[in-house]
C-alpha cells in the first residue's frame, strides 16, 4: 500500500476513534442537565445611547478595559473612539485603507489596532499628543478579519490566508504562526487565562490553540458553514460560536464536544457577531436580519431581542463589567443597551 493510502486509512481510523471517544463521555445532554435550572428572565433592554458619527457601514467594535471607552471601525475609513457614558467622540483615527474589518483596544488603553483588506494590522498610539501609527504588521497574505492585543507588546491576528499569528509589536514580526485551518479564519477569542485562544473559520471548524507552543490542541465540528463569531465562556471551560448556518453553538473544552445548538426554525439569517453577559448566562448574537437575539446559554431558548437597527448587526460587545451591550450595524450606528 502506498504511503498516501496508508495515511488516508490512518486518518479515517483516528477520526472514528475521536468520534467514539466523544460518544463515550456523552452520558447526558445539556438540555437534560439544565432541565432543573430556572429559566432566565425575559430580557427587555432599552437603547440608552444611539452613537451617530460614522458615515458608512460599521464592521467592528471593541470595548476598552475601563468599561467606558470603545473603538469602532467603519468603511468610511475611520476608527472612532467613543466615551460611551457621555456619547461623545473622544478621538478619530483616519485609516490608510478604508476596507477595515476589525478593530481592537489594548488592555492598557494606550493602543488601538485595525486591519482588513489591506492584509495588515496597523497599531496606533492614542496617548501621544497626535495619534501616531506605531507599527504596520505586514505578513499575512490574506485579509485581516480579527485582531486582539495580549498586551502593549503582543497582538494576535486571524486572517483570510487561513492562518492566525502572534506578533511582537517591538519588532513588528510574527513570533508564532498558527497553521491548521483550511478556510479563511474569521474570528478569534482569547482565553481568560491568556494561555490559549480559539479561532473560527470558513472551513466551519473552531480550533483551540496553545499560544506559546503554537499547537492546535482541539478541533470542534458541527457547524455547516463559515464560523463568523466566537467567544470564550467566562469561566474558560466552554466556547460559543456563531455561523452563516444561522445557528450558534456551545462547545465544552474538557468534554471536547458540542453541548447545545441555539437555533430557531424562524431564523434563517447568518450570525455575524456575538457577546456574552458577565455570568455567561446570556448570549447576544447579531444576525444578518438586522436583529440581535438574546439566548439563554444553558437552556438554549431565545429570551429576548434587540431590534432597532436598519441594517445588518455586524458587531456586538459587552464591556468587562457587564453593564451593557453595544451593537454596531451596517446602518452606521452603534447602540448601547441595558
Amino acid at each position: 500500500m502506498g504511503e498516501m493510502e496508508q495515511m488516508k486509512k490512518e486518518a479515517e481510523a483516528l477520526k472514528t476513534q475521536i468520534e467514539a471517544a466523544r460518544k463515550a463521555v456523552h452520558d447526558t445532554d445539556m438540555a437534560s442537565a439544565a432541565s432543573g435550572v430556572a429559566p432566565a428572565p425575559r430580557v427587555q433592554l432599552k437603547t440608552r445611547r444611539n452613537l451617530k458619527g460614522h458615515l458608512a457601514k460599521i464592521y467592528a467594535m471593541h470595548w476598552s478595559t475601563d468599561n467606558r471607552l470603545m473603538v469602532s471601525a467603519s468603511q468610511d475609513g475611520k476608527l472612532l473612539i467613543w466615551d460611551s457614558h457621555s456619547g461623545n467622540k473622544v478621538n478619530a483615527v483616519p485609516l490608510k485603507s478604508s476596507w477595515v474589518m476589525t478593530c481592537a483596544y489594548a488592555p492598557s488603553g494606550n493602543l488601538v489596532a485595525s486591519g482588513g483588506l489591506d492584509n495588515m494590522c496597523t497599531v496606533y498610539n492614542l496617548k501621544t499628543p497626535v495619534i501616531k501609527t506605531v507599527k504596520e504588521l505586514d505578513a499575512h497574505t490574506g485579509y485581516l478579519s480579527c485582531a486582539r492585543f495580549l498586551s502593549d507588546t503582543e497582538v494576535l491576528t486571524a486572517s483570510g490566508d487561513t492562518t492566525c499569528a502572534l506578533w511582537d509589536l517591538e519588532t513588528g514580526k510574527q513570533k508564532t504562526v498558527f497553521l491548521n485551518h483550511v478556510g479563511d479564519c474569521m474570528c478569534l477569542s482569547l482565553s481568560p487565562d491568556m494561555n490559549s485562544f480559539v479561532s473560527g473559520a470558513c472551513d466551519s471548524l473552531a480550533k483551540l490553540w496553545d499560544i506559546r507552543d503554537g499547537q492546535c490542541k482541539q478541533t470542534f465540528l458541527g457547524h455547516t458553514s463559515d464560523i463568523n463569531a466566537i467567544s470564550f465562556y467566562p469561566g474558560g471551560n466552554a466556547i460559543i460560536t456563531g455561523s452563516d448556518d444561522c445557528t450558534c453553538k456551545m462547545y465544552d473544552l474538557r468534554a471536547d464536544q458540542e453541548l447545545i445548538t441555539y437555533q430557531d426554525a424562524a431564523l434563517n439569517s447568518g450570525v455575524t457577531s456575538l457577546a456574552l453577559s458577565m455570568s455567561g448566562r446570556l448570549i447576544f448574537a447579531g444576525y444578518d436580519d438586522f436583529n440581535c437575539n438574546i439566548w439563554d446559554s444553558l437552556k438554549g431558548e431565545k429570551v429576548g431581542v434587540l431590534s432597532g437597527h436598519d441594517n445588518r448587526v455586524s458587531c456586538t460587545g459587552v464591556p468587562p463589567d457587564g453593564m451593557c451591550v453595544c451593537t454596531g450595524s451596517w446602518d452606521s450606528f452603534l447602540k448601547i443597551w441595558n
Partner: protein
Amino acid sequence: MSTNNNIAQARKLVEQLRIEAGYERIKVSKAAADLMSYCEQHARSDPLLVGVPTSENPFKDKKPCIIL
C-alpha cells in the same frame, strides 16, 4: 512537486488527529454541572441578567436640569 505536497499535507493531518485523539475528555454531565454552577455563582452580579437600578446606571437617560 504536488505529490510530495499532498503527502506532506496528509502527514500533517494524521499528526494533528493523533494529538486530538490523545485528549482526555471529561463526562458531559460533569462539564454541564460545572457550567451551570459557574452561571449560578455569578448570576447575582450579572447586570444584564438582574437589571441595573437607575441610580447606578451610567447609561441612564440624562434629564435636563429644571431651574425652579
